[in-house]
């Protein structure tokens, strides 16, 4: 600590600090906190480990199932290998998505971030892009891995293959759903800036509100329920459109994405306007 003066060994300034630098910075930030690693490990554990266990237990008890249960499982071959793991995984994705931005506020990091890059929309765009790509890659890898592992385990009683109608779309859709959900949660994190509050809100929407709307009176209640963000989004996981579904799988994902874009727009306006 004898040197006091700053050695001026920086290369000459070239161009502006822009989205490229922001993307590299956000990637460094997301990969260097343990919560990211643990979340990804948890997602892998749920999609492969827990799923395999449940699939194996189901096969083990197959003989004791009622014919109705057997028929139900055979008609929805992706229920065990895809739908259930995604339903649990989404809780992890929601927490991670919220924390990508709320942790900046709870730790005070946001002040360092914005001193280095005060163009706030650049920061938000970089965060969204980095997290979306991470969730998409991880989501697709895990959903294909879960499908192939699960398929082997349930093959004896519930045969399923990528060639079956709607199956490939459902497996790809699972990864897409998780990526969109990640951004949906990130938007809440940016709007509320409070980890616990944002997680509670997102989980409340996913687990409670989306079910409560199913209890609303017929006709219009049915519509509201169908257009709830995750209700619509989850349609992409079903190989076949059920007779009473108002939306097709892709329409459902579009509705969920629409909600997400809307929330991100609100988040962007607030992120730009508010004092940090």
């Amino acid at each position, binding site marked *: *600590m004898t*040197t*006091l*003066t*700053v*050695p*001026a*060994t*920086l*290369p000459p*300034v*070239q*161009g*502006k*600090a822009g989205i*490229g*630098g*922001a993307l*590299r*910075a*956000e990637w*460094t*930030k997301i990969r*260097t*906190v*343990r*919560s990211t690693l643990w979340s990804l490990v948890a997602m892998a554990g749920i999609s492969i480990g827990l799923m395999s266990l449940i699939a194996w237990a189901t096969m083990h008890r197959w003989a004791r199932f009622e014919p109705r249960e057997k028929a139900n499982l055979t008609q929805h071959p992706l229920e065990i290998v895809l739908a259930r793991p995604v339903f649990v995984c989404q809780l992890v994705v929601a927490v991670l998505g919220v924390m990508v931005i709320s*942790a*900046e506020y709870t*730790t*005070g*990091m*946001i*002040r*360092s*971030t*914005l*001193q*280095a*890059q*005060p*163009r706030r929309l650049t920061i938000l765009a970089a965060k969204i892009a980095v997290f979306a790509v991470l969730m998409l890659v991880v989501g697709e890898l895990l959903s294909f891995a879960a499908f192939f592992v699960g398929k082997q385990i349930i093959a004896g009683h519930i045969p399923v293959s990528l060639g079956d109608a709607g199956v490939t779309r459902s497996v790809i859709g699972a990864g897409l759903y998780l990526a969109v959900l990640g951004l949906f949660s990130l938007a809440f994190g940016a709007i509320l800036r409070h980890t616990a509050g944002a997680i509670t809100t997102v989980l409340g929407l996913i687990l409670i509100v989306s079910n409560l709307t199913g209890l609303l009176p017929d006709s219009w209640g049915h519509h509201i329920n169908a257009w709830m963000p995750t209700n619509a989004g989850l349609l992409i996981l079903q190989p076949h459109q059920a007779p009473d579904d108002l939306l097709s799988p892709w329409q459902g994902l579009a509705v969920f994405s629409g909600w997400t874009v809307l929330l991100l727009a609100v988040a962007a306006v607030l992120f730009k306007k508010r*004092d*940090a």
Partner: protein
Amino acid sequence: MIEAVGLTKRYGDRLAVDHLTFTVKPGQVTGFLGPNGAGKSTTMRMILGLDAPSSGTVTVNGRPFVELDNPLREVGALLDAKAIHGGRSAYHHLLALAQSNNLPRRRVDQVLELVGLTEVARKRAKGFSLGMGQRLGIAAALLGDPKILIFDEPVNGLDPEGILWIRNLMKALAAEGRTVFVSSHLMSEMENTADHLLVIGRGRMIADCTVQEFIDANSELAVRVRTPEPTRLAELVTGAGGRAVPDGEGTLLVTELATDRIGDLAFDNGVRLHELSPLQASLEQAFMELTRDSVEYHAAVPAAGQEDRA
């Protein structure tokens, strides 16, 4: 160069910063002084674009901070030692900041070396002491080799060695021609470091002057004189244009007359003196005197007790 014109921040009906106009020049350390809650941090946050002014403007190098092309290359700031994610290592914290401004990776190692954190660079920042946190914040401020440096209460929580290190660092940075703007609520801290002072209280500018001007204007000289003939000396002092106030048995406090003159006056008139000692109000007292009316929260102590609080 930092320039503020009519800078104002209003929270509800409370004015945190009230029409501040000032210039912070390069090549010197400018102390930003005021009691807690005077609006120093809010002002700094507005300089850095973290808070938007309610009215008025502030620019760095002639441009609003948010319009700078490469912010870290122009302004380095330490606002508080906690502007970090505790789960990340010092190295990765700095790396992310460096990447955002396209600074080379080796620069991270350089600043870590410079602040003496190389050995703990790979440790998570949540285990850092307050002093280490301050050093990390300073490392971040120096990353882009900026011409303007802003430090908010940089010596808070530092040990004496760290305080000395920061003082010398600030002086060295200013000597290199950089603009150094540093806040403190302690006059004693600025006395040895700053060349220029901006003093604020309740968001308003109270003084904008050099340290010497501040001393001259605010530390009134008084001379304590002990003599067996106080009444006679008091008359002589008054006759010579000074003011003498009794200060206990056989003692006078003389103002508006220099020590030498009082001594000569007594000698010429055969008045015996037992003590002749100049008293200088400390800068700390002068500062407290100046900002007394603008302190946001007073402790409920008698006024006399304030003299001891320096």
